[in-house]
């Protein structure tokens, strides 16, 4: 069963059992089932974001009036096909391990002459981040069905992976939560939401290969940075800075653990 049909099954289970739940809850559950069914019938709405991301990629912008078409996502300038499946990776020009979104900021700065600051600081629903989410939808779509191939060949990649593994287990805050609290056991859920067991290849693949994703309940296109941001919120942590090393380290840990699995991006989620 693919993830979409697992999702539908979950929603059907909710609707079957919802009889016993309070009315307000029942209505909310049924509303989101309806929305989910509709969205699936029309195809993944992420396609619309992919189209606008492609346009953003190809349209000259910024002080240098340049497009992003010469951006090197790791496979050489301008190569988009398959690039997302090999991120994060070390880039010689910045001497940093970068995920897709931090790499895009580098290209916007160097090729287009844009200041990355407003992109970093904007909320996820503000226009600068809408650009990032659309670009992430487009570029990740160009790796759909590609095998995840993240090597830890460079020492900085290896270091980032280890930092990510440690971050994953780092407890803090008033609830003592770490990523591992919610994603560290096989087969658990929060309320009815299933939680991937990320330290396993299968769980990491479930999480990593399906984001960026269109979220039906919110009607929004979420990048992996946004996904992580919201998990840190639930973790009761302070807010991770957009494209900060902690977020890249976690992505490196997940991507490397998921190595070999097939990209299903952009995904669709409840």
């Amino acid at each position, binding site marked *: 069963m693919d993830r979409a049909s697992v999702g539908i099954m979950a929603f059907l289970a909710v609707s079957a059992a919802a009889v016993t739940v309070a009315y307000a809850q029942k209505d909310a559950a049924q509303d989101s089932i309806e929305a989910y069914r509709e969205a699936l019938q029309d195809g993944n709405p992420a396609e619309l974001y992919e189209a606008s991301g492609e346009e953003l990629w190809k349209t000259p912008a910024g002080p240098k009036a340049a497009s992003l078409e010469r951006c090197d996502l790791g496979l050489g300038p301008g190569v988009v096909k398959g690039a997302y499946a090999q991120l994060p990776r070390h880039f010689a020009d910045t001497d940093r391990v970068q995920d897709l979104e931090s790499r895009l900021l580098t290209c916007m700065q160097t090729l287009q002459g844009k200041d990355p600051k407003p992109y970093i600081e904007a909320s996820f629903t503000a226009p600068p981040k809408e650009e990032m989410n659309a670009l992430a939808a487009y570029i990740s779509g160009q790796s759909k069905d590609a095998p995840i191939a993240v090597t830890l060949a460079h020492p900085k990649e290896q270091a980032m992976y*280890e930092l990510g593994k440690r971050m994953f287990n780092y407890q803090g805050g008033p609830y003592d939560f770490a990523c591992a609290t919610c994603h560290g056991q096989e087969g658990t859920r929060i309320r009815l939401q299933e939680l991937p067991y990320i330290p396993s290849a299968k769980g990491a693949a479930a999480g990593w290969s399906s984001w960026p994703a269109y979220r039906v309940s919110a009607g929004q296109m979420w990048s992996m940075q946004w996904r992580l941001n919201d998990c840190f919120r639930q973790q009761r942590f302070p807010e991770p800075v957009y494209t900060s090393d902690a977020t890249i380290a976690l992505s490196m840990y997940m991507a490397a653990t998921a190595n070999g699995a097939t990209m299903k991006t952009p995904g669709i989620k409840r």
Partner: protein
Amino acid sequence: MKHFALLAAALLALAGPALSQTVLSQTAGWGPGADDAAFSRMLASSFKGKGVATIDRLTQDETQAFCSNPVLAASPAAAAQRQRIEAANMATVKWPSDGQWLGDWKQGEALAQSGRGNTWSDKADTPNGGNCYNCHQISPTEISYGTIGPSLTQYGALRGQGEETLKAAWAKIVNAKASNACSNMPRAGHMGILGETQIKHLMALLFDPKSPVNAQPGPTK
């Protein structure tokens, strides 16, 4: 948060040398790249305080630091350390000031349902929920429950209301690490998430014979 501050004094600060030495020497498994200085630098540069979620939340107390290395924490070699951490957490548990264990189960149910509080999108005056249904099956009428913790359905009906039983449940809610050093359950009382009155309501949800948690299981009509 009183106890938190207290413990924090004895603690391993974010970039503190104490943490570097203890944790690193025990965690060769993390790999050379995750050395403590690099990890501290990463934490310091990666987060910003937002609303109630201030940056000091990254500073670990002893329990959190110990449990952040799950392989070590679960190892036989760490048995004594686990016991010491449980004892330190147990020492923070205060029993109900008036000797009454049980409040109102209906208010307990509302608290168990609510997952509000303490995120950066919550207001400082948002009343905290208990988050209990996020992790536990509790009342059989609520089908939207999580499974990180065990089912608490029939809790009182199965266990009765003996003093030891009441104390164990009370201590679990006040400070889950008192009996299990690296429990995944938050320390609701110890961390100031819930107060004594609210904990009594939750106790009633678990133990009151009238609470749906303890309803006779039987064929539904």
